[in-house]
């Protein structure tokens, strides 16, 4: 079978110890559920010699609780499976529960964590492959090489954000709490991701994502998530999207639409303010689809026909918006 490189696994028992382990071992990587990093390590995608395993942080970071402000707070070590089943999550942010239930398969959902999904490394068919395969290809921008096989002449890695929880949390204006040797900070999710496939978040190497905060207002918003994939389980998204709507009677008070599995940064569809006040109807849904189609250009970083994915996007958006309206 494929072998893992020689690694030292550090097992901190607290958040403070984990941050210290990251600080003391430059280049160390975080191991939460391991569902993504382990295959990537076998593929030789990381040169790290140290893993900081977070299992010992479960007592601190595995919770679903409602803050007195009405904010929903989710610990980063919550498993994807338990978020998909949580009554509180289902009641307050049903689109998040839905997204969680569509990640991978049952075994992987039990291992994978919320923090791990949000920090999931970007993916590309040209890089998530064995070292041998990448050597035969001639390597690429993301690892060991200088060329991009997706964008001819491209100088910036466009590996795709493939986290299914991100679009929902983006559409719902969630933020994340982090901790590093420099202290804690709270980052709005729309500022958390950057358009760089090499490292698509603003997290510093010694910084740990500890919590997700979803504003109280989220519960009042109509919301829906959709995922395009070739199989009904296992697959990473070929496209995913989430819509959140605030309605005033039958008219739209506010709308946000997030689309991902395009390039390194999950995208919030821009310029939707003029639709505020529009009737929440089929014409509105169709219009959102049109705008998403205009702004989103799928690439060959995901091994499924980009032209077809773009054709399907407006249909998915329309159907998802109508589902959210109910």
């Amino acid at each position: 079978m494929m072998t893992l490189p020689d690694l030292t696994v550090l097992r901190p028992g607290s958040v403070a110890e984990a941050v210290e382990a990251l600080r003391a071992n430059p280049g160390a990587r975080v191991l939460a559920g391991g569902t993504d990093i382990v295959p990537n390590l076998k593929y030789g995608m990381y040169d790290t010699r140290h893993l900081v395993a977070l299992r010992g942080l479960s007592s601190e970071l595995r919770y679903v609780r409602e803050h007195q402000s009405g904010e929903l707070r989710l610990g980063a070590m919550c498993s994807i499976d338990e978020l998909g089943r949580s009554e509180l999550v289902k009641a307050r942010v049903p689109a998040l529960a839905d997204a969680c239930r569509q990640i991978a398969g049952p075994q992987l959902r039990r291992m994978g964590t919320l923090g791990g999904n949000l920090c999931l490394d970007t993916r590309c068919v040209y890089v998530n492959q064995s070292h041998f395969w990448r050597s035969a290809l001639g390597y690429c921008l993301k690892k060991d090489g200088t060329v991009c096989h997706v964008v001819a002449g491209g100088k910036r890695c466009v590996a795709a954000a493939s986290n299914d929880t991100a679009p929902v949390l983006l559409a719902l204006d969630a933020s994340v709490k982090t901790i590093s040797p420099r202290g804690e900070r709270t980052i709005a999710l729309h500022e958390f991701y950057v358009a760089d496939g090499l490292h698509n978040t603003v997290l510093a190497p010694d910084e740990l994502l500890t919590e997700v905060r979803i504003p109280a207002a989220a519960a009042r918003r109509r919301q829906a998530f959709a995922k395009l994939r070739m199989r009904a389980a296992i697959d990473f998204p070929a496209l995913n999207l989430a819509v959140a709507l605030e309605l005033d009677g039958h008219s739209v008070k506010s709308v946000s639409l997030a689309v991902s599995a395009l390039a390194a940064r999950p995208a919030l569809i821009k310029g939707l303010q003029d639709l505020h006040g529009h009737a929440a109807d089929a014409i509105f849904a169709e219009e959102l689809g049109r705008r998403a189609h205009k702004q989103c250009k799928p690439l060959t970083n995901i091994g499924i026909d980009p032209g077809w994915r773009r054709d399907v996007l407006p249909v998915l958006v329309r159907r998802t918006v109508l589902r959210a309206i109910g």
Partner: protein
Amino acid sequence: MSIGARFPKSDGVAKADGSGIYADDIALPRMLHAKILRSPHAHARIRGIDLGAAEALPGVVATLVGAELPLKYGVIPWTQDETALAVEKVRHVGDAVACIAAIDERTADEALRLVKVDYEVLPAVLTPEDALEHPEIKVNERAKVGNVTKHVHLQFGEVDEAVAGATAVVRETYRYAGSTHVPIEPHCAVARIDADGNLTVWSSTQIPHYVHRELSRVLGLSQSKVRVIQPLLGGAFGGKSDPFALEFCVAKLAMKTGRPVKILYTREEVFYAHRGRHPMKMDVTLALDADGRIAAVDNKILIDGGAYASFGLVTAYYAGQLLTGPYRFGTYRFDSYRMYTNKPPCGPKRGHGSVQPRFAFEVALDEAAEKLGLDPVEARRRNFIGEFVETVNGQKITSNGFLKCLELVEKASGWKERHGKLGPGRGLGVAGSMYISGTAYPVYPNEMPQSGVLVKLDRSGRVAIYSGASDIGQGVNTLLCQIAAEELHCDPYDVTVVSADTDLTPVDLGAYSSRVTYMVGIAAREACQKLAEKLRAAGGATFTEACQRAEAAEGAPLAATGGYRTEKLGGDYRGGTIGASPAYSFTAHVAEVSVDEETGIWNVERIWAAHDCGKALNPTLVEGQIEGSVYMGAAEAQMEEMVYDEKGLLFGPSLLDYRIPTSLDTPDLDSYIVESNDPGGPYGAKEAGEGPLHPAIPAIANGIHDACGIRIRELPFYPQRVLKLLRERDARREERAAS
């Protein structure tokens, strides 16, 4: 009675609870682990291999290069064109170059990265069209002409005249994509050499006998010094029916080091070992006369073979020879080229050689029937060839339950009430097929039986069956217990089966061509009947007592052998024996399909599959084979494809990128067993493991047509292809409306 009973699989619990011993479960004292260095180029000459740094790495014990195993091997004696490791040239990305044995897998992996190979990169041919156009780029030196592994041209009757006189003629091109088997167990082999120089190789193979022969030849050891054992197998589907590089490498490295050596392929290496479904381009002409009878079938077939022959000679024949039932053809011609290309070699995958032309033919038949306004089920019924008849190419059909199969799926699916009436986006499609129950032609010419079984009775009442056959999940070991119980009247749980061990068991040629139940069944029944005779003569109140009395009467332990002797069958022309089988199975499917016309995403809602297996010796196993086949066929229609880039690099050689359906993507299946009780088969049995795959693909294509009026002629039926066809259909409709 044991035959026909739903007897549980004899290895079922061991597979489910983890106690079964697969090749990778074998760990021997001082065992080394080896890894194979593979070519990053599709075609290159090897100028030199520098192993110095690798050999210096602590933990590395031995290395191996192609020059140490220069003899070419292959199952088919006329096309032996492979070496375990490249000798002068590499012929596809992933071709084996060198092998390193070390104290563990990680050390061997690290050592591979230290090997320096000096390659002279050569131009490569990556499609069969290129291979034809560029004979000067020689992929494989065995090809006598250009890059042709095998060319077959056979004609039966005046095809062109029949086409000219026909009422409805379809001329279309159909394309079948390459796919691979994806057994859950990757290939694995372990070798050990004992103090007397005897070599034992445990291998996840479905052809221990051919591995035995080829190991002996390539290693220069007499066959009596080589023992091949097939442990429990985690799936094969034809993907383990060639000798593979790993078997020669572990054997040679064990001989060099005196220590046991294991190789377990990674999933990626299984993709490079391949031997999967051949991509085919088929230019079909199908002609019906005015009352819907098949006047002519003409098929020009271009086959993409990959870098080595494997069973390619047979593929070139099977692509034509196995199409001539269950319908009567007035005339028939096929012309097939199996080409070498610089890609991993194709070979036999479940339904070897005939799944692709069956798809093309069954869709073309629908298209032609449509021209005549003929119902697709009726078109098939009308052309039924009958029982105990000879096909246009001289194959002798014995029992034939096809009409019964067709009637069952027609009724179960509500065809008459529902076909053409399910409304937009939903439809029904039908297709039929035929397949062989083994081939009359042994792979290497010889007069010995194709299958042998030895049965021994013990005075304890225990029965031991020694059989060379490979249980690859189809359940032959279970079947042997049932046959013993049937003939000897013993408890099937009192039977030990010793199988697929070339030192201990009589030869069986292997698990391919759906030959095992038929041939091993006949051999086992013969051996058991000989013993039953003695037990009857001896008498006794219990089975154990009968054994004791019979042994006393015999004055020696009781044992008997049985064999399957190859019949002389087939047409009297060159190639006429290929595809000649002692009995043929028949299948009919109806598929119900839904299509989302806005996205092209479609779904198989249900498949009704009826299969004539002659006699279901164990209905549970037969149903399992039908379901597994239908699922595998539907998967090829849905999503499976080996896709290469412009340099011959296989996209995504992993189970994440090469998608096979999950349980959620598998349609609801209704299997029906039809028993035509074949006069030649053991207890009337015929094959069930491969035939039921064939109609799934064309039935789905025909169902998509019924759902939305498009003809999809290229696999897989990706939603983007469906959407494109839907848009073309809409454009045609608009044009018609405008004019």
